[in-house]
């Protein structure tokens, strides 16, 4: 069987390689491989647990807040710290705008070009494009003159002969189905979204000093002070600015992103039957609405925690972090017994590269073939991400999620089973964005109300000094990154990190096979994907991009060698 190799898979974060065997016109079997690693967990050993979030935040520069939150939660869980309400609310707001911004970037800049043919946009009639745009939304930038301007810009760009990032793509591929007008509309929104994303993410700079890589978290709370009577703290002025940004965020999501998804989807409804995959979904849940201190009992979560098995939307199973374990059977690591899995607290990680010597043409997919481990929940391969979160919330009866999912399904005239697909993943991401965007202003108001009650606390100081800590402690932290369930596990001994393990969304989704040969979510989802032209495997990209891969996050393991302490003390 011919083997299609896509490496690099572009428009993702990090280094991913897909090898797929094509039988006839469909993928028969697929393998997913992460081809870069850094060894962060080893680097963390022996360091101050309060510093860990700054290191782990650099696991990923795309959703720049989630590893920070997860890390401080893990350490807080270990030390029994309950953060003040202001800190909880600020964390939710930071993460909320991260979701909204990140999902929009994913749709327009990382995924849309799988569905939108930029070259065909040049055939569009701007007047008709304007009619189309106005028929789906009252977004103000929809005049014929506006689209004429966009078309001329694209023409000038093409005429310059320097196509930059748009050169050499699969333009003209038969799988592109949109009429020219829809293509032109999408290109206009691609450019608008580029402007919009850097504007709305200023909220991160207000609350966290900068974006990407905020510098505002602390074990025990946050470092951005709140004080209505100070220029140096979060005050009425900064809260007003935040709300202005969040209004902009919500408007774009409701008037551009959602209408675009609804306008494009009918042309690709066959993709509601492609890319289904495992049918098992896991969500750790997120956005705590009450103040508690344990990761196992995080209080009321805006997006609920749960597991769905075998597409059964009638039952949401509870989550037990102890059922999480990783295999290395097909990963470039070795355990004492490669056939057995390990819980992250036991986290044993010895690199063992057995792949071909670079440069190579194919990986040995019968043996080890990835730097990613294979996490399993209760020994089952599961999918994580917006689709998992939306399904768990839908099944749990979340009112806003239910409202929007039902509205979208009705509009597309499909049933809930359409969600188990490449198109479903893309739709779920959009629905989630709408649901979170609705919350940003109410959550900011809630923070303002708490501050106006006179509560200025942002940090729990009792446990700041390591001298107050138990000699030994272990904890785990959870969050839902935009890409899915994220957990950090930490062991602390004598005030230092003894062991640190992260299991990140893309490790679940991009996992290689495990000891019993169960494929990961990408590998399962690709089976059956049509491939019209093996030289231009556009359809494989569609399914892979629907997961929004983040390989930098997924690859982080290395040997447990002791770290020599090296500080600058005493000059």
């Amino acid at each position, binding site marked *: 069987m011919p083997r299609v*190799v896509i490496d*690099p898979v*572009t428009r993702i*974060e990090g*280094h991913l*390689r897909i090898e797929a065997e094509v039988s006839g016109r469909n993928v028969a079997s697929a393998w997913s491989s992460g081809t*870069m*690693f*850094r*060894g962060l967990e*080893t680097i963390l050993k022996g360091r*101050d647990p309060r*510093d860990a979030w700054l*290191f782990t935040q650099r*696991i990923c*520069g*795309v959703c720049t807040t989630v590893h920070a939150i997860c890390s401080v939660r893990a350490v807080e869980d270990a030390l029994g710290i309950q953060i003040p309400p202001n800190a909880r609310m600020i964390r939710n707001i930071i993460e909320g705008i991260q979701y909204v911004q990140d999902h929009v*970037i994913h749709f327009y*800049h990382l995924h849309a070009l799988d569905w939108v043919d930029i070259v065909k946009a040049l055939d569009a009639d701007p007047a008709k494009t304007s009619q189309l745009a106005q028929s789906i939304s009252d977004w103000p930038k929809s005049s014929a003159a506006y689209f004429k301007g966009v078309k001329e*810009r694209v023409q*000038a760009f093409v*005429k310059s002969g*320097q196509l*930059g*990032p*748009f*050169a*050499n*793509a*699969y333009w003209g591929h038969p799988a592109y189905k949109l009429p020219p007008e829809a293509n032109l509309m999408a290109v206009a929104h691609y450019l608008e979204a*580029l402007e919009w994303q850097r504007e709305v993410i*200023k909220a991160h700079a*207000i609350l966290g*000093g*900068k974006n*990407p890589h905020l*510098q*505002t978290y602390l074990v*025990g709370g946050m*470092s951005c*002070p*709140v004080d209505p009577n100070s220029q*140096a*703290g979060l005050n009425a002025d900064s809260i007003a600015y935040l709300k202005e940004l969040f209004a902009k965020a919500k408007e774009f999501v409701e008037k551009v992103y959602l209408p675009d998804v609804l306008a494009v989807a009918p042309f690709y409804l066959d993709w509601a039957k492609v890319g289904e995959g495992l049918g098992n979904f896991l969500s750790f849940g997120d956005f705590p609405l009450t103040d508690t201190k344990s990761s196992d009992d995080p209080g009321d979560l805006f997006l609920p925690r749960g597991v769905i098995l075998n597409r059964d939307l009638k039952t949401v199973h509870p989550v037990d972090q102890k059922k999480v374990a990783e295999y290395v059977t097909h990963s470039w690591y070795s355990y004492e017994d490669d056939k057995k899995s390990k819980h992250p607290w036991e986290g044993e990680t010895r*690199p063992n*590269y057995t792949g071909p010597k*670079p440069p*190579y043409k194919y990986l040995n997919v019968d043996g080890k073939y990835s730097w990613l481990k294979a996490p399993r929940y209760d020994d089952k391969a599961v999918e994580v991400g917006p689709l998992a979160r939306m399904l768990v919330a839908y099944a749990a009866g979340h009112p806003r999620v239910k409202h929007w999912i039902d509205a979208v399904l009705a509009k597309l005239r499909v049933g809930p089973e359409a969600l188990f697909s490449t198109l479903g993943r893309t739709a779920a991401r959009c629905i989630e964005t709408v649901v979170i965007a609705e919350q940003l202003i109410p959550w900011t108001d809630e923070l303002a109300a708490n501050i106006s009650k006179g509560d*200025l*606390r942002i*940090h729990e*100081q009792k446990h*700041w000094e390591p001298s107050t800590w138990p000699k030994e402690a272990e904890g785990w932290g959870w969050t839902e990154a935009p890409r899915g369930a994220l957990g950090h596990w930490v062991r602390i001994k004598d005030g230092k990190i003894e062991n640190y393990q992260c299991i990140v969304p893309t490790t679940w989704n991009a996992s290689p096979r495990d000891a019993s040969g169960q494929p990961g979510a990408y590998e399962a989802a690709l089976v059956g994907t049509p491939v019209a032209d093996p030289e231009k*495997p556009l359809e494989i990209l569609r399914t892979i991009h629907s997961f929004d891969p983040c390989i*930098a996050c997924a690859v982080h393991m290395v040997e447990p060698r002791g770290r*020599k302490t*090296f500080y*600058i*003390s005493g*000059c």
Partner: protein
Amino acid sequence: MAKGRRIVSISETAGADGMLAMLKHKGVSRREFLRFCAVIGATLAVPVEMVGKIADALASVRRPPVIWLEFQDCAGCTESFLRASRPTVAEIVLDLLSVDYHETIMAAAGRQAEEAREATIKTGGHLVIVEGSIPIKDGGLYCCVGGRTAMEILSEATRGAAAVIAVGNCAAFGGLAAAEPNPTGAVGVRDLVKGVPVINLPGCPVNAINITATVVHYLTFKSLPELDAWGRPLFAYGKRIHDNCERRAHFDAGQFVEAWGDEGHRKGWCLYKMGCKGPETYSNCPTVRWNEGINWPVGAGHGCVGCTQPGFWDTMTPFYRRLPTVPGFSVESTADKIGLGLAAAAAVGVAAHAVASSVRRKTKGTEES
């Protein structure tokens, strides 16, 4: 120091499709364009008279082709680049360059992506922007793209290049992956690339304005900006955070935050005792700030972590411990005793200390390899 090196490349070719023509198509007026040039001029710290020259240079050039390589990275510098906010629209910043290869944003994938890169290399005279460190241990197999190692790709891409810009601390100095015990043998670009000028724009991540300003400098003056001993442009890394910090008056007055959320913290006092590394860190953060100048870490109540300095993951940690006492020039004792003169003396001491610790780390690296 790489001083005023003249670089000859494709970007000198004037053409009808120069940047101003491009910008006109985007509805950008000459006035807005000049304002952009003025901002860049200010970032570069060149005299006002130079703004016209910058404008002329930019209006006539073809966008220089760029190959942006991502190795052991987190895409944070890419994200930072996408947030570039001066001039008014992000796409102008994209249009300053012809980004022919950039895995995170390019439309092509797999073989077609690699072909785009190869075509640009063949023409030559391109800029190579590197994000992420390069692992050299075990033949470099810890980072492969298209079945080839990062080392090999870097060496191929820099052949015939006009210059290499290492963005972020990882590409400049090895950054996070190179932190102790550096499991993959990660190094920065300057350790590998010879014969082509290399500019370091460290930071974790890089501030986009420093990329734009460096490129504009290159297009305007046909040369690279003057660099310090660490390969960093002086216009952006010539001064310490501490020297331009908005909280400096509180430092000098002995007003320090003692606990997160205390009164001093809420009032914006100095973060030195909470571990601020501003006194040892060279960067323009306090002046250009972030995200269109909205804020910067110290502005949000957290100390500087020193992310523009080589080896900061080792030399600046633990992050919440105040900088160590320097015998004779104790910043710490200054904190308690107060005194302007003493503070100034301490500043010199701390700077000397920063150099000393960096040198020591280098020595240690040599011992290990």
